């Protein structure tokens, strides 16, 4: 119910449209409910003809005919407006919801996105929004139409003949009670059905996105069986939900027919008894009852749409009510010229997803403006998390991070992130041109600036060799580019951004040595006057850093310059030795070759 109220509130944003929709509804109902009276009158007139009453002229029948036509025109025109407005309000609501949902989701912290699968979010944005839309149309706008039709017809029936009227509408409470009972069960079923559906969509999405793996393992039939079992579950739950709907719909029609039979029986008695209840009156009575046939049939749909909307609303609002853990400050500090100097301090920073498992523990670190800091450590040691905390993709569980002596929580997110250029490990390219991918977030960048950035990241040559040049489209997630090329695209993006703080997260791992060397030379120039975080596995990329920290299990175990760390003879030294060994071996091999 709570969900339905919230949905209705959204619809109330369009209150003028809604008001007009209800007014036209009312007029349409009014025109509709007086129609049977004239049908009845016509029958009475004709009955009089039959009795040989010559006072009836064909003129009176023609008059009735014109009234019927006029009322129908009014009714038709009003139903046009009503239907059109119902549709348009429902479209406005789904538009609002889709926009809000999208905006809300795109501003959530990474922790949210770790938890909610894109497939799951997609299914909410598609199916749940549509279900809510249908409810606005069917439930919110049309239900009052049907309900008022019901009430007015009931009133007319009772007013025209108390007993017969009461008998005729006796089925209404039955329908009402039955409907409300079934509504709850239906809602629960739809919730399960939607959940199953979104599980199915996760399987689909992962399968499509991971096709390379699927193909590499020839696991098509395995994937099919995975899909099949979920597919079966979806079919089963839909059958169940539908069955419920069908049993209610068929029962409602049944009660309606029974009341029709009763009216015929008792009404027939009344006419036979001749207590000024004429055949025309009975006909009128039946015509009125007939009006109810449509609402009865639609009731099932309405209840269904209500149940679906309630569960869809629940899923929708579940997301919309999640507050991003990363919150904006209300009074942001604005640095001079909107640009940081780049002095960074980590003060006792810890981070964990769950208490037993610290990702980072009491990190203390001071990076002076303009210096280069390198971070080294095995996978999962927390290197990337360090960078994620800096950009506030997550907030630290403990401690604080300062940039230029201000807690980063006191800057606006936009300010913070526009000052930090990130080359992320997992490169994500968008389905658009190479140019737009490089200028991502900088629509105002000129072609020259873009080209320059591509030159630094060693992408220019390749791009120019393409037929479309910078206007070439890249496939989804950049699938038409190789891993190394994608990484270089991401470097170009960061270069174009020209930030005071640069984070290079393992940014050249998929690039061949030749290219890496070229990028490095260029990057050295780019890194001038910037605070740079270099996260890398290979010493060659980091030994020039001003400061090197070695992470293990979320803690800093060693730090210092390259020389200092070598002298420590600790973990760093070990890595250094490991990486040099092949070199020594190759020297050995070569001597062997020479001697042979």
């Amino acid at each position, binding site marked *: 119910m709570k969900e339905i109220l919230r949905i209705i509130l959204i619809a109330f944003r369009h209150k003028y449209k809604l008001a007009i929709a209800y007014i036209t509804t009312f007029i349409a109902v009014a025109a509709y409910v007086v129609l049977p009276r004239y*049908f009845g009158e016509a029958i009475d007139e*004709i009955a009089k*003809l039959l009795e040989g009453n010559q006072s009836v002229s064909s003129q009176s*029948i023609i008059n009735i*005919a014109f009234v019927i036509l006029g009322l*129908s025109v009014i009714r038709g025109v009003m*139903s046009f407006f009503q*239907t*059109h407005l119902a*549709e*348009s309000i429902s479209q406005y609501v789904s*538009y609002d919801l*889709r*926009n809000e949902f999208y*905006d809300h989701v*795109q*501003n959530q912290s990474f922790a949210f996105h*770790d938890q909610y699968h894109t497939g799951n*979010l*997609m299914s909410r944005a*598609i199916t749940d929004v549509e279900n809510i839309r249908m409810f606005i149309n069917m439930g919110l706008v049309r239900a009052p139409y049907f309900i008022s039709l019901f009430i007015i017809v009931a009133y007319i029936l009772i007013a025209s003949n108390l007993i017969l009227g009461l008998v005729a509408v006796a089925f209404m409470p039955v329908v009402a009670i039955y409907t409300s009972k079934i509504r709850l069960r239906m809602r629960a079923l739809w919730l399960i059905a939607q959940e199953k559906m979104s599980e199915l969509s996760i399987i*689909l*999405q992962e399968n499509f996105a991971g096709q*390379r*793996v699927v193909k*590499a*393992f*020839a696991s*098509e039939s395995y994937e099919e069986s995975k*899909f099949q079992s979920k*597919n079966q579950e979806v079919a089963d739950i839909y*059958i169940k939900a539908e069955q419920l709907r*069908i*049993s209610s719909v*068929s029962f409602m029609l*049944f009660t309606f027919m029974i009341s029709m039979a009763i009216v*015929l029986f008792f009404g*027939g008695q009344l006419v*036979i008894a001749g207590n000024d209840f004429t055949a025309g009156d009975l006909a009128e009575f039946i*015509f009125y009852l*007939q009006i109810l046939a449509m609402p009865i049939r639609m009731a099932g749909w309405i209840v269904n749409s209500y149940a679906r909307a309630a569960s869809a609303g629940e899923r929708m609002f579940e997301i919309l009510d999640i507050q991003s853990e990363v919150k904006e400050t209300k009074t942001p500090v604005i640095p001079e010229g909107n640009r940081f100097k780049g002095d960074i301090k980590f003060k006792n920073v810890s981070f964990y997803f769950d208490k037993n*498992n610290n990702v980072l523990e009491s990190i203390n670190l001071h990076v002076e403006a303009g210096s280069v800091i390198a971070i080294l*450590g095995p*996978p*999962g040691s927390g290197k990337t998390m360090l960078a994620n905390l800096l950009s506030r993709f997550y907030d630290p569980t403990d401690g604080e991070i300062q940039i230029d002596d201000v807690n980063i929580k006191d800057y606006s997110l*936009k300010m913070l992130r526009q000052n930090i250029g990130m080359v992320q490990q997992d490169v994500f390219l968008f389905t658009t041109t190479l140019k737009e991918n490089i200028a*991502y977030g900088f629509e105002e960048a000129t072609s020259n600036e873009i080209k320059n950035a591509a030159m630094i990241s060693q992408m220019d040559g*390749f791009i120019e060799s393409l037929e479309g040049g910078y206007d070439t489209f890249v*496939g989804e997630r950049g699938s038409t580019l*190789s891993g190394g*090329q994608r990484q270089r695209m991401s470097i170009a993006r960061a270069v174009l951004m020209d930030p005071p703080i640069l984070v290079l997260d393992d940014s050249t791992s998929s690039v061949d*040595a*030749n*290219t890496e060397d070229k990028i490095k030379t260029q990057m050295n120039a780019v890194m001038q006057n910037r605070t740079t975080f270099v996260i890398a*596995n*290979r010493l*060659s990329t980091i030994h020039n850093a001003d400061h090197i920290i070695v992470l293990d299990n979320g803690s800093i175990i060693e730090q210092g310059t390259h020389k200092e760390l070598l002298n420590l003879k600790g973990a760093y030294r070990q890595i250094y030795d*490991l990486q*040099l060994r092949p*070199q020594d071996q190759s020297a050995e091999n070569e001597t062997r070759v020479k001697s042979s």
Partner: protein
Amino acid sequence: MNLGLGGVSAARGHSDEEFFGSAYDQRVILRLTPFIRPHIRMLTVSIVSMLIYTVTLVVVPWIIGHGIDQYIINKNQQALTMLSVVFVVVAVINWITNYIQQYAMQRVGQGVLFGLRKKLFGHVQKQSLSYFDNTEVGRLMSRVQGDVGQLQEFSALVVMSLGELLSLIGIVIALLLMNLKLGLITMVVIPILMVIMISWQKFAKKTFVEVRRRIAIVNASFNENISGVRVVQSFNRQERNMEIFNEKNLSHRWSNIVAGRYAAMLLPAVDILTAVSIVLAIYFGASMVEAGELGIGVLVAFIMYIQRFFDPIRNLTMQYTQLQRSMASGARIFDLLDRTPTLEDNKNAINMPVVKGDVEFKNISFSYVDGEDVLKDINLQISAGETVALVGRTGAGKTSIVSVLARFYGIQPGRGNIYIDGIDTTSVNRESLVHQISMVLQDPYLFSGTVFENIRYNHPNVTDEEIVNAAKAVGADGFITKLSHGYDTYLTERGNNISLGQRQLISFARAIAPNPKILILDEATASIDSQTEVLIQKALKTLLKGRTAIVIAHRLSTIRGADKIVVLEQGRIIESGTHIQLIQQKGLYSDLYDMNYSSIESV
């Protein structure tokens, strides 16, 4: 107009959004028949009960008319009671048959959807990677889920529409039987209605097409920008993306409202025509009653019938959008099913016997795009148990070689052959072959599921112990056991809750676990730190024993120990030999080698 990111490709070129479909598309219905066939018994049950149900519906006005004329006006109490009892019996039959017809029909509907989804999914699996390279995930999703979902609504509609069509026929028959002359008179409005419907449909069609196209754009944009949310946030693109999204969403709303207006336009026409028909019945009925040709009850029944007569059309206008959506969805689904699967096995393909590991490429050329060969006349022989390293600059064709071997793409006819153990790979069933090859890919894609499930992937007979051993062999055991639930830890979408390096280790373990005869390592250690890498290198020495291995790596240190090194440049093999031979040749390999180590020397 700038459509912005994401939707651009949906708006340009991709013809599959062009399907609009009419409200009734015979081809779609015909194509559905094979999916309906398995449920033919249920369908028969449904149709039979639907016929009975229709009779019970149509008979009601007749009962009322008959009652008024024969018993009420003639004051026949007893017969009226009898008739009422008959009415109640009719109502009960109506209830039962209504339930059965709908229930059976929706069982059929669900069965068809189930089959369709299954078929579609299986069909998509048979496409080569080039299909996936060129098709957005969002688009595929909307095909298998969105479009099939549309048919779901359709199945419910079919029940309603079919029922209404039947009652329409029933009513026509009843009208003509009750009074031929009056029946014909009241039906003169039908041709008018037909003309209106046909011309309406022409206009409406276009607008509904537009609706479908625009929603596809909205969804594609949503999918892409949420998948890439990490980049979106780090480049502060939320506001701009919101603008773009809003623009698409807005244009979708607009086209929907226009379409809705078209649908609503039929209503006044139907209402007025109903009235005209009733008025005709009353006017002509009156003189016929006077002349004694017609009973009043019959006239009452006539009016009731006419009111009902237009109900199907009224409903159709309400459901027209849905009907058309479903037809368009159906057309798109069958278009996808008609795409010849590029990876389908030869008709007489045999199962690959247990692989020993001899691999031979004979004159293999390959292109992703016609006319742009990425592999040119590759000849390569690898004996069982050998380790071969592929070396070359980015884009030289290394990954393409292994992609062709693993049959990600079909070998184009006349463009060479690949033999494994002397058997032409096109003559064997793909699954039986690739199942015996393991790969570690550049992008260590993991599925949501536990670590166990991820390593066991597609090899259900691999034991937990073997999994732990594989993880140990690649040095993944250490971090896995430290995860909150060890091997039972649930990895989220793409393994986002562990680091890239860790993902790579798991994908390594996944390749090793089934103990394959042929192992392909494509940049398998790119994101792994050097300590772990050295561990893996060491482990590989034992792991590669007795297996044929093809190794791709940029770091030459990883591949120096290979039995044979093959150097590629622009899709051709330009050098091949052992490390020592190639160093002596002073060709590209020795250049690359120098480059690679110069950086470390400077340390």
